[in-house]
């Protein structure tokens, strides 16, 4: 062990015997630990919610989407389909067909038709041939519909009939009423590919093709493979890019929470400054003696930086243990219940991400070390002769 480290650790251990120093050292360590724990719990709370949104994102949106770089339709849809199907890990490929329609309840003439967008389902749960639809809770409520009821969809497109142009309509059974989620757009309905083709009058081809992957995390790698296979003229997007604004909002939310709660750590850092400054004043004579023994100013600086690092390490470690323990307990024992009929969750979820814990630990430790710099530099600049002369 370097002599600077021994001295710093001994100063820290010995501070227990000096009540005022021990109090300030205790406040410094506890302040840092509280700040770290608060950050860990806050981010675990956010991650708990965001993980669910992310899972929904992966579940409800296509993992890969290939569209034409220019124009509304794919010039060679079969080539796109083949390219997607050739990618290892692709479990389903389907055309993306979208349009606008009016929805109404065929059994309830009093219900007012609702304007909405329909799109072919990406998740594949509405398999070919079922002809069903998946609607949001909001639409179901407005049209007084439930699973198993029929829903009438009147397309904005029309067909010619003996009595003139009539809107293209389809009555399809409601397969699923989705409970609200962050990803549900209020005026959107998912229908089978066949229904979408009928409503949009697109018997073949598509504006885009979408694929689902066994491992959504490999989407970026798969996308680069598809882009290479297809060459230019196509836009290949992953589920992350398709949900870019939402992903950005979630990241922004996390960053803002981090910066806000991190203020607690900065306040704790001020305690560390005062603790180390107090030790510098108390140990002024020692600094003079070390200099007389041949210690260079850099060594004196190191003593106090090590002291800051030790306080930082103890506070950070304590805060991490407390914060992680509390987050895991809150999740494991569901200690914060929620009314599930209102929030769709039975409890507030907490998720501890190791990468975030590492960032918090690094930030807290660096802040503690940074707090030590000012008093440590003052110690290094101390005139040793004066320190000895005045401490007689």
């Amino acid at each position, binding site marked *: 062990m370097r002599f600077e480290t*021994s001295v710093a650790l001994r100063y820290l251990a010995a501070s227990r015997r000096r009540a005022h120093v021990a109090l300030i050292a205790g406040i410094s360590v506890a302040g840092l630990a509280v700040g770290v724990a608060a950050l860990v719990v806050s981010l675990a709370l956010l991650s708990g919610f965001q993980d669910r949104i992310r899972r929904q994102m992966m579940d409800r949106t296509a993992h890969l989407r290939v569209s034409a770089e220019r124009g509304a339709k794919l010039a060679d849809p079969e080539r796109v389909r083949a390219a997607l199907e050739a990618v290892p890990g692709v479990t389903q490929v389907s055309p993306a067909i979208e349009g606008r329609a009016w929805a109404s309840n065929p059994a309830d003439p009093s219900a007012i038709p609702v304007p909405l967008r329909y799109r072919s389902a990406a998740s594949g749960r509405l398999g070919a041939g079922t002809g069903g639809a998946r609607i949001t809770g909001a639409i179901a409520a407005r049209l007084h519909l439930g699973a198993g009821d029929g829903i009438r969809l009147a397309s904005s497109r029309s067909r010619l009939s003996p009595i003139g142009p009539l809107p293209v309509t389809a009555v399809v059974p409601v397969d699923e009423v989705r409970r609200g989620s962050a990803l549900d757009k209020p005026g959107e309905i998912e229908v089978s590919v066949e229904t979408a083709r009928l409503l949009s009058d697109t018997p073949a081809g598509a504006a885009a093709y979408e694929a689902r992957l066994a491992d959504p995390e490999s989407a970026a790698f798969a996308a680069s493979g598809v882009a290479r296979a297809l060459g230019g003229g196509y836009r290949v997007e992953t589920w992350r890019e398709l949900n870019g604004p939402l992903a950005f909002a979630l990241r922004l939310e996390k960053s803002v929470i981090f910066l806000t709660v991190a203020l607690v750590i900065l306040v704790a850092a001020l305690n560390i400054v005062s603790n180390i400054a107090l030790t510098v004043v108390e140990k002024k004579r020692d600094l003079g003696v070390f200099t007389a023994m041949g*210690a260079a100013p850099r060594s004196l600086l190191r003593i106090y930086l090590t002291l800051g690092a030790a306080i930082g390490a103890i506070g950070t470690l304590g805060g991490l243990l407390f914060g992680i323990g509390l987050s895991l307990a809150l999740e494991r024992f569901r200690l914060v219940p929620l009314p599930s009929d209102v929030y769709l969750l039975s409890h507030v979820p907490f998720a501890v991400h190791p990468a975030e814990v590492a960032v918090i630990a690094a930030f807290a430790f660096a802040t503690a070390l940074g707090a030590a710099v000012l008093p440590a530099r003052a110690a290094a600049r101390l005139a*040793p002769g004066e320190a000895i*002369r005045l401490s007689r």
Partner: protein
Amino acid sequence: MTLAIRAEGLAKTYTGEGAPVKVFGDLSFELPEGVLAAVMGPSGVGKSTLLHLLGGIDRPDGGRVEVLGTALEELSPRERARFRNAHIGFVFQFHHLLPEFTAEENVAFPHRIAGVPEGEALRRARELLARVGLAERGGHGARALSGGEQQRVALARALARGPRVLLADEPTGNLDAASSQVVFDLLRELHRERGMTTVVVTHNPDLASRCDRLFTMSREGITAATGLSERR
């Protein structure tokens, strides 16, 4: 005879709170190698300041200090620290042992500052403590030692790196008569044994009379009772 210490035209003024305090304005001092010199004088004339300047732990406002042929002003702070560690030992009036450490840890510090591994530094410290008669007290904290023992530990610490120059600032000033004798005898023995150049600031005329040379410092200057004569 080779000079171990040579100070020319030293000036020092303390500028702290209140009016500046001029300690001396043009002080010169020389000491050949291997000499045990005593510096006497009333309090406040700058004896301790002189030792600090000779040891390079304080810097003069003017003048020049050469120790063992090396001009301290020309060294960088790091080089000066290394030079001090290797060649100069300090003993203070109030021992200034570090209370958080044991006697042997205190004595091991100069070695550890020099980069000697902890185990080896402690081994050498124990040897030196045995030399000053404190072999059994190495593991005791500094506070557990008597005044005389503390000063002997401080002496061992000053000699840890085998310095060629020892600067002792009233090493017996805080001790009773018996302990003063023990510490001073030890200091003299070690001085002879190691062939050092030693400057002892003291208020005790008996101890001063047992040194090779006696310098007297006053407001008017520093005077050598034997040999060298300096002026302020």
